[in-house]
């Protein structure tokens, strides 16, 4: 009898320790996410949506997490809140795409919904902004339409920012939480920046960091990056992907310059005067 009581006491104590550890770990995760500006829970009574100030001072830039295969991108295929079927291309296109993964429940997302309702804000590089939510099995199309300002509009996709409901996209891009942003270079066909952000200014910083990091380098199918030029310029034929022969020639020239110690930005590439020291021809 005594042994049974002792055994039960020990078991209860162990379970108590286990539960305490789980609660502590959970609290640490929630605290960490909260510090990143992410709220996981749905609206709580009495809470109010927090507007995103598009012109507020930028918070500290967040690091861009790594992705095992940045080139593993898929087009955004799903339904609009009106039930239209869409497939938005993100690779083999001249434009870049900034994908905003939002939910109807997260508090921080509300600010982005409100910010996007009046039209796409300025995206660095002229990238196309697309909102992606989970599919209709997880989100209410009517609620999403209301948040996106699409309620009452026709079914042709009218609205400032395209909205695609696609759990497949959510899972393929391995979205950890909302709001989450993924920047895809259309010419390179790869993810060049991603991360969480609490405000639009932080998103801009994420995109700017991706460009500054040089991660917009095109893949083997092209040599120009539309993320480095405005859309209007990128549409110019002079900035379009070049032929394979031109790519080979460009690569050979780049290699020769590199071997000569001349790298991008080298002043010798931009002489202010011709000083050949030759015969004056």
């Amino acid at each position, binding site marked *: 009898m005594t042994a049974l009581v002792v055994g039960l006491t020990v078991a209860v104590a162990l379970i108590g320790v286990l539960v305490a550890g789980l609660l502590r770990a959970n609290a640490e995760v929630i605290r960490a996410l909260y510090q990143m500006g992410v709220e996981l829970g749905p609206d709580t009574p009495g809470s109010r949506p927090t507007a995103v100030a598009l012109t507020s001072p930028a918070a500290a830039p967040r690091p861009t997490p790594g992705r095992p295969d940045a080139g593993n991108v898929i087009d955004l295929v799903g339904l609009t809140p009106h039930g239209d079927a869409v497939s*938005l291309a993100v690779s083999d296109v001249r434009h870049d795409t900034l994908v905003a993964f939002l939910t109807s429940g997260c508090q921080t997302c509300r600010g982005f919904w409100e910010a996007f309702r009046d039209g796409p804000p300025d995206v660095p590089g002229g990238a196309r902004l697309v909102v992606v939510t989970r599919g209709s099995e997880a989100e209410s199309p009517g609620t999403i339409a209301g948040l996106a300002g699409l309620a009452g509009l026709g*079914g042709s*996709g009218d609205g400032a920012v395209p909205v695609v409901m696609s759990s497949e996209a959510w899972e393929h891009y391995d979205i950890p939480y909302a709001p989450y942003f993924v920047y895809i270079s259309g010419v390179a066909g790869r993810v060049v920046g991603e991360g969480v952000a609490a405000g639009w200014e932080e998103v801009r910083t994420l995109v700017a960091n991706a460009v500054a990091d040089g991660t917009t380098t095109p893949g083997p199918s092209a040599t120009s990056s539309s993320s480095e030029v405005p859309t209007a310029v990128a549409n110019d034929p002079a900035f379009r992907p070049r032929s394979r022969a031109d790519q080979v020639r460009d690569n050979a020239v780049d290699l020769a310059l590199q071997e000569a110690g001349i790298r991008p930005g080298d002043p010798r590439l931009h002489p202010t005067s011709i000083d050949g020291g030759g015969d004056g021809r």
Partner: protein
Amino acid sequence: MTTSRAPVAAMGLAVTPPSGWEVAIYRRSPEAGAQTYPVLHAATVALPPSRGDYGSGVVELLGSDDVFVALLEFGPQAAKSPLFSSLRAVPGITPDAYRPRQLQRTIQGQAGVQRFFTTGGRAFCLYSVIGALTKRVVLTAQANAILGSIRVQAGVEAGT
């Protein structure tokens, strides 16, 4: 690495867009007493949110290497009319079919083509625009690539 293409399907229409193509299958909200039918848009440029059924808002964005394709369904009574019933499947296009004068709105350098057909008891108008008449051979092949992937489900009551 880009994974395999995913088909897009709605309202008895399905299409598997080649790489770089955008697709939308939609139906406009009907006004009182009116009936609307599905429309399929496909283009090698980003489809803008606001666009007309015959591509206004899109064709202005086409560069010389771009293609736009629209498939517009008409009511079941149209399927029996001579205009629609002469072709019995989604037609392919030949390069010489594209003409500058077949555009809904003339845009310098562009060319368009329009075809009417019936398949599965459903009547459709095919309308396509290429960004440059001078590149019609290459661009026609692109248009045919997506036209060949279109599937029409028979017997779907698509009107609303």
